[in-house]
């Protein structure tokens, strides 16, 4: 008899331990994902700032070779200043898009100047800017992937209890939402 009760108690204790371990494991997994998310978001910021810092350098390099393209250069500088001073997320997304467009037109213009294209500084800057664009898009991509996994986990059956208990909230995807922001910015020459 005593042995029987002891066995049942042991099994119950074992179950409680397993349950506790599962709760802890799931909670930790959610915390880790959320921290990855926040890190990815911060990374996007870092890369955007890097782009802002590279642009004055680029403009100086191009100025020496493409003397008649001051219009394009000014557009780039203006776009960059606007992007630096933008505050809200929507404003920033729009300003960054305008800046991307301005840079594209600048590189298109540079194609017409073979001296500029062969300049080591210009090539290095072009590589840095290409890489920064890539990094922005990769960190955005990683952020979105992680957001999806995180949101799914918050809503799927066994883990949604833990999520509710500890108040984990959905995160938003990083994408341009308003329809007018989706239009390609028009850059005049």
């Amino acid at each position, binding site marked *: 008899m005593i042995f029987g009760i002891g066995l049942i108690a042991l099994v119950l204790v074992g179950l409680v331990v397993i349950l506790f371990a599962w709760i802890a494991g799931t909670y930790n997994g959610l915390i880790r994902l959320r921290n990855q998310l926040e890190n*990815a978001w911060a990374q996007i910021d870092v890369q955007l700032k890097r782009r802002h810092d590279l642009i004055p350098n680029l403009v100086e390099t191009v100025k020496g070779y493409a003397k008649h393209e001051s219009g394009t250069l000014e557009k780039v500088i203006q776009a960059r200043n606007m992007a630096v001073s933008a505050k809200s997320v929507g404003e920033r997304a729009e300003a960054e898009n305008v800046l991307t467009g301005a840079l594209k037109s600048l590189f298109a213009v540079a194609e017409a100047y073979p001296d500029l294209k062969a300049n080591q500084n210009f090539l290095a800057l072009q590589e*840095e800017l*290409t890489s920064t664009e*890539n990094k922005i898009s*990769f960190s955005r991509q990683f952020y979105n992937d992680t957001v999806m*996994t995180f949101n799914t986990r918050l809503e799927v059956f066994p883990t949604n209890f833990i999520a509710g208990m500890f108040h984990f909230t959905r995160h938003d995807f990083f994408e341009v939402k308003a329809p007018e922001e989706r239009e390609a910015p028009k850059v005049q020459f």
Partner: protein
Amino acid sequence: MWEVIASNRRRSILLIIVMAVMLVIIGYVAGEVMFWGIAHHRVLSRHHYSYGYQSYGQTDSGSAADVDAGGMIGVGLALVIMSVMLFVYFTDAEDVLMHGMSARELKRDDSPQLFNIVDEMVLASGLGFTPKIYLIDDPAPNAFAVGRKPETSAICVTTGLLYRLNRDELQGVIGHETGHLKNRDVQFMTLAGVMLGSIIILSVIVRQYFWYGGRVRTRSSSRDGDGGAQAIILVVGLLFAILGPIMAQILYFACSRKREFLADASSAQFTRYPEGLASALEKISAAHESLSFASDATAPMFIVNPLTAATGEADSIFSSHPPTADRIRILRAMTGASFADYEAAWRRAKGGSLIGSQTLQSAQQQTIRAPSNEGPIQSRRETHDVVRRYHGYMRLHCNCGLDISVPEGYEQDTIRCFRCGNVLTIPAAAPAPPTSSTAASAIPPVIPGIAPPVVAPAGALQFHRTNANSWESFRCACGRTIQLSPAFAAPHITCTACGRSIAIT
């Protein structure tokens, strides 16, 4: 992506446990076989010599106890072998490995494009740390990743690879290696290799024992009554000794091949451009050079098996890499860029499943991005520069626009430009003017255990930088080329050959 990584981790742990169990079983059987013979012989001789003494009535249980002891000894032996190999695993001797392959660590200034690509892949995979980057000067294109811990992780590429691939393809290859690091393939395959190695060593011991020590047993077993049971144990032991390693090898290589496919899938997921890796693999397998320093031990680490790259591969169960043609075919059949798309392409090409539908339930389709419009391969000059710096060349710039690379050991002080005929002086560290106060105070730091370097006797040397934004080289008084990177900001540099301290102004 996360589900695939988690399921990978679970399977890896399971596999290591399975192999460890196999190792213990083989150890037990080997011990029974080997030490049973010795124990039984000893027991028999005890019985034989117990004429005038009390007979040892417990020979039966005694021999059973000796048989079990034999098994335990075998398990102990297996564990000892495994511990030794694990000890080597935990020493983290990646830099020894790199040195053995003549790989040089690159700094960011050496190859900005390569570092940028690695950074991009680190971001896309969420790796959390940036691995070190090494370069091997070999014309055969190949790449690999090593590292048990983030601090010692490294990705290594050959110059042959950098010469041949454009940016998208290089990104694909680096994505593949980053996939290995993200999926912890290095740890996993090394541990599996430790298990495999222990099994093989144990089986070699058993086979040697059979070859040299067999006669002892046959004599004793023919004397005893139950020769049948012993013969069965013998046969089973021999079977384990022969088949065990073969099965373990098959398991090991099957895992290696599967991991390569998973790394391909990871690369497609990270870069969102599977065609990049596909055309890189095509170029690598089309190159007709085999890597000069790869051996059977290091071959599984590379992106394409270096020993068979030049001559074509056999699709056997013992190949560490899947056939490149298969990998390219699957990558090119992908209609999207995620793991789910890779799985779909795999099913169409090979049938069966790689990742498992359970894992992929929540994975979404991803669209493939457009290729980057890089144009013809620009990076060759950069790669040439890196290689020359590696070999100690000095770079001089002539006013006509030509850059001249001067090897170390060039004895004259001037060189004539090939294009315009202008005579250029080789910059060298000159003795500082005596009134300068920055000169002589440079006493090299004393590092305990290393003999202090010789300091130049009469006045210290100095070099004046003309262009602090780019690489500059000059010659020390001993003839050694010293290269200063744009990031160099210290007031002194110590020549690595003669130990002189040179002031940089």
